[in-house]
């Protein structure tokens, strides 16, 4: 039989009230002499599932081709297993977003203890890839996000990942309690991937990232197998992002497509009122550029995000 026996380790285990433990698990795939370590982390938000299929695909392929691995691949499919199991974005029964609790602490609440154990386990990886899939409201083009201070270090690795887009954003104090910020600030290079939409699996995006992960492994000298050519991402550096928010309440019906290049003022959708059968808001593009985020969930309030548009670069093209 081809493949290897899965080596599953428990990163954190906390007894729950009735006859059950909360276990955070990882699978370690190891071959060859190299100690180079790639960690693939996902499932922090229980409603984001794209990473589940990606974790399966990568683990499965390495499993069948273990001789081509020279190093260590750790796969953490579910940092928030109870959330995934109960379709809950955060940790059930805990108010704070798990990705606002890092680095955690050993003598804090249960979630802080778990976060602390996760960080201890991930520290020392050569690269960590933290896969998210937006939320149930928005669909995202495969992209990597990073803050301006981390970009000089991370951008070369992001370009290896076969994503369409790299969004370099301002750093915000509140984001200092994310997994990625914690790891990056402690010297473990961590790439945050956003792709697809919550509660769904988009196979084409998973395949795109799968190619990116193997390319990254090849570049890190961990993978000797065949890899696919990767695309050059559009980089947001020096370009603004236009946010299209609803001003009305109703049902959003888009008429533009995800990935479309639009002009300022182009009609990209309507907010309609099912009771009066009126269009309550004609939604227009706020700038020239490419739509990289699009609303999936139709019910909207004033303020609901409908789309994000990456503005064209100075020379008008999508230069990379």
């Amino acid at each position, binding site marked *: 039989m081809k493949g290897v026996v899965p080596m599953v380790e428990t990163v954190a285990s906390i007894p*729950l009230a*009735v006859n059950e433990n909360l276990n955070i698990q990882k699978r370690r795939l190891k071959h060859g002499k190299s100690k180079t370590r790639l960690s693939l982390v996902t499932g922090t938000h229980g409603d984001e599932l794209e990473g589940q299929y990606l974790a399966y695909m990568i683990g499965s392929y390495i499993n069948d081709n273990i001789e081509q691995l020279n190093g260590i691949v750790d796969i953490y499919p579910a940092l928030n297993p109870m959330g995934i199991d109960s379709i809950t974005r955060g940790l059930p029964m805990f108010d*704070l977003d798990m990705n606002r609790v890092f680095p955690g602490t050993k003598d804090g609440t249960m979630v802080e203890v778990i976060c602390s154990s996760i960080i201890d386990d991930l520290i020392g990886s050569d690269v960590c890839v933290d896969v998210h899939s937006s939320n149930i409201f928005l669909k995202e083009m495969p992209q990597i996000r990073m803050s301006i201070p981390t970009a000089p270090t991370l951008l070369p690795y992001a370009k290896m990942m076969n994503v369409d887009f790299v969004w370099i954003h301002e750093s915000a104090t*509140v984001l200092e309690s994310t997994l990625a910020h914690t790891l990056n600030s402690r010297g473990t290079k961590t790439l945050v991937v956003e792709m697809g939409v919550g509660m769904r699996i988009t196979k084409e995006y998973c395949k795109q990232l799968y190619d990116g992960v193997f390319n990254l492994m090849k570049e890190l000298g961990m993978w000797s197998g065949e890899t696919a050519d990767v695309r050059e991402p559009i980089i947001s550096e020096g370009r603004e992002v236009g946010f299209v928010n609803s001003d009305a309440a109703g049902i959003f019906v888009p008429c533009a497509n995800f990935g479309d290049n639009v002009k300022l003022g182009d009609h990209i959708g309507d907010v309609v009122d099912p009771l009066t059968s009126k269009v309550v808001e004609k939604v227009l593009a706020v700038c020239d550029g490419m739509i990289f985020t699009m609303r999936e969930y139709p019910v909207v309030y004033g303020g609901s995000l409908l789309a994000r548009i990456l503005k064209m670069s100075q020379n008008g093209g999508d230069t990379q």
Partner: protein
Amino acid sequence: MKKNILFSLKSPYREQLDIIGFKFGHGKKSLAIVGAMRGNEVQQMYVCSRMVQELKKLESKDRIAEDTEILIVPCVNYYSMNIGKRFWAMDNTDINRMFPGYNLGETTQRIADGLFSMLQGYEYGIQLASFYQPGIFLPHVKIMDTGFTSPNIMKDFGLEFGIIRKPRPYDTTTLNYNWQVWETKAFSVYANATDEIDVKAADEAVNAILRFMNNRGIVSTKTPPGYITEILDESKTKQIQSDSAGIFFRNTEIGKKVERGNILGRIYDPLDGELIAEIRSPVSGTVYFVYNSPLINSKTVCFKIIK
């Protein structure tokens, strides 16, 4: 008293959300009090409604200082309260993690922005706060240590303890933190309960706020004598974690003095009833937080003791 709509938001399927504020007095913005920002903060709303009653009486007796305006916002997120949710009904975001808000942003950012624009410019701000875990606190007042609000002002509430909290990154989007950035001296008052009404604790919170207002010259009123407040750093309090999981019984109450080694609680196996663990106090002091759910996971903070 003037009852005003501070901010409105249209809903696709419900009546418009109107955030109501009650204004007392006239002139310089002196004090704003905010109650429920989450849908289960019933006690916080109740304390504010009691403050409205008290201020109506004081206003009718001309006991509000001249050139002084007081604003009370009892309930921000009644949309969630009416359907039994804690956070914003549509996307489960927390309005109290959206400050200072953004008028072109997401829905709860817009609510925070609309509310915050009405809360700015006051000399003092009081938020009736709740904790993110099931449990009850000894009524106390807390400030976030941004360097702006002097901890000694907490003594004017006359509560037993005034606690200084060093802000963490996730605190920087709360009302309390942003109030201080915009130069309002901000306090969080913990009135024991959250999703149930504790009248005794509400009485204590109302008296504490009235005492504060009287001591700061905002109103002239008599209140029962308060404590000489002990001011302390939150990091100096002792958090006690459970090391086991099961059915939780506590042997102590908030406000009780305990000695090192006292049994604070017990955990029993939920299926066979065997005693699994006794939780003993590692320090002597006053219990100021107790976990109050019948089931407990391991590594849950179940007691906090002020040494």
